[in-house]
């Protein structure tokens, strides 16, 4: 199994700084994962209060992004990292961007949850959101787990999950179009659901990016766009 092997630097402070950005990235990942779960639940339970919370908390994710980026810049300026250290720092700067975008998408989902909660309480479209949502949450969770362990095999397996998510997304789109054709009164609602599944699909792409970056850190191989 391909995993990252760490040994200590001569400068202990450097070790601590690298450990710090890893830990903070994981904390940010955990926060984003929670935001996503809550946003999906807000849609499926028509819980506008929970949705408002997700919207409110998005700014904490933004703050985390700025803080971690700053820590990475400081490491580059102070330590001039090379090889695996350099790859790690570069990965973290890219990963925070992906996580922040996931946070944005969760916020978008929450915005739609608020609108949906105010509409009629039919269950059309919820199955699609719940199904896709579960897959996306699981994928993000697996991506973060692969990062925590620097596990390339797990990252590669998680990348594969995105294919299924794309398929499920297309299926959901078809079903939503069917609802709209069957009952034009559901168009407004279906469009909101459509934006939600679109966000979920985008989150899958960001989780895939995370996994590609894990492969880059551990193996030095850039597998993007392949």
């Amino acid at each position, binding site marked *: 199994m391909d995993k990252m092997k*760490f040994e200590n630097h001569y400068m202990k402070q*450097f070790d601590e700084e690298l450990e710090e950005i890893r*830990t903070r990235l994981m904390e940010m990942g955990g926060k984003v994962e929670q935001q996503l779960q809550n946003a999906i639940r807000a849609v499926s339970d028509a819980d506008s209060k929970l949705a408002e919370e997700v919207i409110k908390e998005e700014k904490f994710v933004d703050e985390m992004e700025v803080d971690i980026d700053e820590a990475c810049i400081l490491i580059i300026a102070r330590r001039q990292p090379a*090889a695996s250290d350099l790859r790690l720092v570069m990965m973290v700067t890219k990963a925070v961007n992906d996580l922040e975008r996931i946070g944005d998408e969760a916020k978008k989902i929450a915005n739609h949850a608020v609108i949906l909660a105010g509409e009629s309480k039919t269950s059309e479209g919820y199955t699609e959101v719940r199904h896709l949502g*579960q897959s996306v949450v699981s994928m993000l*969770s*697996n991506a973060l787990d692969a990062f925590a362990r620097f596990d390339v095999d797990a990252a590669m397996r998680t990348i594969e999950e995105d294919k299924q998510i794309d398929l499920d997304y297309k299926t959901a789109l078809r079903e939503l179009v069917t609802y709209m054709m069957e009952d034009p009164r559901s168009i407004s609602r279906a469009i909101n659901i459509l934006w939600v599944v679109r966000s979920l699909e985008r989150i899958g792409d960001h989780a895939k990016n995370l996994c590609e970056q894990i492969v880059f850190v551990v193996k*030095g191989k850039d597998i993007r766009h392949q």
Partner: protein
Amino acid sequence: MNQNASTAGTKPAKDAKPEAMQTLELTDNEATVGQCFTDKPKMSMRNVNVFYEDKQAIHDVSVDIAKNEVIAMIGPSGCGKSTFLRSLNRMNDTVDGCRVEGKICMDGEDLYAPKLDVVELRARVGIVFQKPNPFPKSIYDNVAYGPKLHGLADSRVDLDEIVEKSLRKASLWDEVKERLHQAGTGLSGGQQQRLYIARAIAVSPEMILMDEPCSALDPIATAKIEELIEELSENFTIAIVTHSMQQAARVSHRTAYFHLGRLIEVNPTEQVFTMPAHRLTEAYITGRFG
């Protein structure tokens, strides 16, 4: 959702760190990894061993240096990189008890052939040391000394031309053209180092060896020398020993990593500093051992 894999709010797994750490020891039969050889080498070294009395400083090093290439040699103190560099123009001949085995050829010519003129060799393969050491003469004479010694100038006009050309190539001309006849020792450290380089260039070398040429210089003087190295590589082949990894990353095309007298890895510089092929190179350039 996979609950076991959930990482919400957790810190990196503790077991991620020491997982099956590879030993950083080197085995005797370990071969150099990477791209050691080129099709048309300017200089080629094969199975080079260097001894100081009974102590072996270099173990079985084989590598090529391509024409107009800048190759950087890095490694911890005492790893043999300077010893190896100095064996390329037989500077080690002057060290008592030093013995070089193996083959070192330039353009196919054996540099350790008994009949080879060592003084001429050192003109063809110039060397720049850590500390600039100008002759206690004028700037002009410092540069003119070599060409005069090797009979490269037929007249004063020729000599003037060589001096100007060399100082220009060393990016020093504009700073010293008004005071060519003042003492070279009056120049700043960075200027003295460039004077030293001009002196090496003046005898039309084919190759320039640099042994930590910037370690006594401030960052601006260092930047000037580094810029110069890039310009010089258009005309010369350069091998540079440096303790600054950033410098190696900036100026060289390939980087060679030495460890305990062995050549561990030679690879394109961009690869060495982003994805080194050997665990010892990785450990060294990331500061994991000294």
